[in-house]
C-alpha cells in the first residue's frame, strides 16, 4: 500500500469532503496561500478558492463564533486553530455555545463543525505552544474528541468528523505531521467509538492515545524481548470511548497502563483508569496505572522538557513493576 504523511492524509480528507459536499469550508489563520505554518493545507485554496478556504485575522474567538453560527445555519465549517494552546481563547464559543446548542434547543438546532487543532510537547516551543489540552474539551458534554495516532487514522477520523452532525474536536500531534503510514487509495471512514487493537498480548494492556500509541508499541517491543506479552490499544476517539474493547482487554490481561500526553492530574488517563477500576476490578491483578505528562508547565530547556513526557522506557519499566507484583504508588 502507498505510504503518505499525516499531513497529506489530513489534506486528502479535507479535499475529498469538500468535493463531496459544497457546504464544507475551512476557516482560520494563514490557511489559504500559506496553507498553515505546518503546510498541512497546501494546495487547497487553489482548488477551492478563497471563499471556501478562508483566511482570518488573528481573532480566534471571532472566527470560532462565526463558525458556530455558520454551522447552525446550514454549512459545515472546519475551523483551523493553529496551536492547541489557543483553545483557551475560544473556550466560550466552543464550550458554552457549540457544545450546548443542540441540548438547549431541545434537539432543534445543531452545530456540525470540526475544530482541527494539535497537541504535543518536545518541539522546544515552551509552555504556550506545547500543551495537550484534549481533556479540557473531553470534559464538556456535547463535544466529541478524536485523537489520530497515524496518517491512516487522521484521514479516516477527519472524514467521519466532517460528516458528524455534532461539534468534533480533532487533536493532531504536531510532531507527527511528517510521519508516514500506509493509507489506502480507496475511500474509507473510521467510525467514532471504535478502538483499534494495535498489537495483541496476554500479560498486560497498554492503552495509548495519539503519539502515545507509538510509545506503547515501542514499550511492547522492549517487553517482548523480556518475555512479557503486551497488548496495545488505541481508543482513537476519547469521546465517544470504546469502553467495551478496553474492558475486554483489561479482563484478559489483568494489568493496565494508560498513557496520554495531557497532564496526568485530572486527565484522560485518570478517566480511563477509573472506568476500568469500576467495571473490571475483580479481574485485575494490579492497580491501573496512569502515565500522563508531568504536572508542570512545559519547560523550554531541552534538558527539562524531555523528562516531562512518557517514554517507551518509562512505560516498559512500569510494566515490569506491575508484572513483578510490586506495590506501586504511581508518582
Amino acid at each position, binding site marked *: 500500500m502507498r505510504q503518505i504523511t499525516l499531513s497529506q492524509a489530513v489534506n486528502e480528507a479535507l479535499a475529498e469532503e469538500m468535493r463531496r459536499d459544497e457546504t464544507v469550508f475551512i476557516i482560520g*489563520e494563514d490557511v489559504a496561500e500559506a496553507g498553515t505554518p505546518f503546510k498541512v493545507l497546501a494546495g487547497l485554496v487553489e482548488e477551492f478558492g478563497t471563499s471556501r478556504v478562508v483566511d482570518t485575522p488573528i481573532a480566534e474567538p471571532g472566527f470560532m463564533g462565526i463558525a458556530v453560527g455558520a454551522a447552525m445555519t446550514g454549512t459545515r465549517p472546519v475551523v483551523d486553530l493553529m496551536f492547541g494552546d489557543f483553545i483557551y481563547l475560544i473556550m466560550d464559543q466552543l464550550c458554552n455555545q457549540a457544545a450546548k446548542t443542540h441540548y438547549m434547543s431541545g434537539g432543534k438546532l445543531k452545530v456540525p463543525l470540526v475544530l482541527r487543532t494539535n497537541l504535543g510537547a518536545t518541539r522546544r516551543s*515552551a509552555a504556550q505552544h506545547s500543551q495537550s489540552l484534549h481533556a479540557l474539551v473531553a470534559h464538556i458534554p456535547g463535544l466529541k474528541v478524536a485523537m489520530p495516532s497515524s496518517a491512516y487514522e487522521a484521514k479516516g477520523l477527519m472524514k467521519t468528523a466532517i460528516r458528524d452532525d455534532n461539534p468534533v474536536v480533532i487533536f493532531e500531534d504536531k510532531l507527527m505531521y511528517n510521519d508516514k503510514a500506509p493509507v489506502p487509495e480507496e475511500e474509507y471512514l473510521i467510525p467514532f467509538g471504535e478502538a483499534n487493537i494495535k498489537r495483541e498480548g496476554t500479560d498486560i494492556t497498554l492503552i495509548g492515545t495519539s503519539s502515545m500509541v507509538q510509545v506503547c508499541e515501542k514499550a511492547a517491543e522492549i517487553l517482548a524481548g523480556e518475555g512479557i506479552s503486551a497488548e496495545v490499544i488505541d481508543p482513537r476517539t476519547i469521546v465517544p470511548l470504546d469502553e467495551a474493547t478496553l474492558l475486554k482487554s483489561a479482563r484478559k490481561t489483568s494489568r493496565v497502563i494508560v498513557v496520554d500526553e495531557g497532564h496526568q492530574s485530572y486527565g484522560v488517563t485518570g478517566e480511563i483508569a477509573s472506568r476500568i477500576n469500576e467495571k473490571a476490578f475483580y479481574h485485575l491483578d494490579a492497580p491501573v496505572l496512569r502515565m500522563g505528562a508531568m504536572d508542570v508547565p512545559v519547560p523550554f*530547556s531541552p534538558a*527539562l522538557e524531555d523528562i516531562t513526557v512518557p517514554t517507551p522506557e518509562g512505560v516498559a519499566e512500569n510494566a515490569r513493576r506491575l508484572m513483578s507484583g510490586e506495590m506501586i504508588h504511581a508518582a
Partner: protein
Amino acid sequence: MAKSKHNTEDYLQMYRQMVRIRTFEDNANQLYLSAKMPGLTHMYSGEEAVAVGICEALEITDKITSTHRGHGHCVAKGAEFKEMFCELLGKEEGYCRGKGGSMHIADQSNGNLGANAIVGGSMGIATGSAFTSKMLGTGDVTVCFFGDGATAQGLWYEVMNMAALWNLPVIYACENNGYSEYTKTEEIAAGSITARAEAFGIEAHQVDGQDVLAVNELTQKLVARARKGEGPFFMELMTYRYHGHHVGDINREYYRSKDEEKDWKDNRDPIIRFRGWMVEQGIATEEEIEAMNAEIKADAKAAVEYALEAKYPDVSEVDMHVYVGVEHALA
C-alpha cells in the same frame, strides 16, 4: 530625521542599543542556522528604532510588555547578552533559568514583564501594570508592545476601554511591520488602526518607526503626560521586519517580494540612517562608530561562546517554580 533634543551621550546610547539588537539577532539567527538553538525564534532586525526610541524614553522602573518578537524590547530595556543567549539556549543562567526560551524572556530587573507567545496576550498585563501604578501611586508608565496582527484580538478593545475610563498610564505601541505571519496587514485590518484607539477617546499617533529620533521624541512627550495622569496613549509605529516571520521562514516570495525587502533595507534602515545623521552632525566620527560596532560584536561573540558552554538546569528544577512558596511541586 526629526529634530533633536538630546545630548551626545543620548545619541550614542541610542545608536549603541540599536546595533546591539541587530548584532544579537545576527548571532541568534546564526545559532539557529547552525542547529545550535532549540526551537524557532522571531527576529527583530529592521525594527530596532521602535524598541530603542521608546525604551530610551523610559526609566528603569517603568514597565514594558513584549511579544514573540521580543529580543529587541529586552535588549532596549537594558538586558545583558549573556543571560539572554543562555535563555535562548535553555541554560541555567538564562533570565528564566531556561524555562521560558526566546518567546518568554522576561527581565524583572529592568522592568520587562515578559515576552509572550500568545498574540495580544500581554495587553491585559500591561494595562494591569498601569493599574498598579495608579493605585499605588508609583508614577511608573507601562508600554505595551504588540504587532499589527495583534490589533485583531478582542482583548485589546476591552482593556483600551477600561484604560481610557480610568486614565491609566499605559502606552499601547503597535509595531506595524506590514505583516502578520504570511499575511499583509491590509488583508487583516479593516479601516484605520489609529481610529480604533480614537474611538475610545485615546489620543493616537502614527510615527515613522525607522526614525529613532522621531520615535524617541514622541515617546518622551507621551510618557511625561502619562505620568501626570493624562494617559492612556496609542502609537502606531510604521516599521519592517527584515527576516521571515521566524528564522525558519526562508522561502517567502509567495507573500513578500525580494524587491520590497531590498527597498526597506537599502533606503530606510534605522541604523544606517541614524549613523549617517550622527556623522553629519559631528556627534561621532566614522572611526568611533566602527570601534563601537566592533566592541558590540566582540561582546556578542563572547556571550554566545559563554552560553554554548554554560550548563543546562539540573533536572531537579523541572518541578520548581510551579507554585510560589512550594520548592518542588511534585515532591
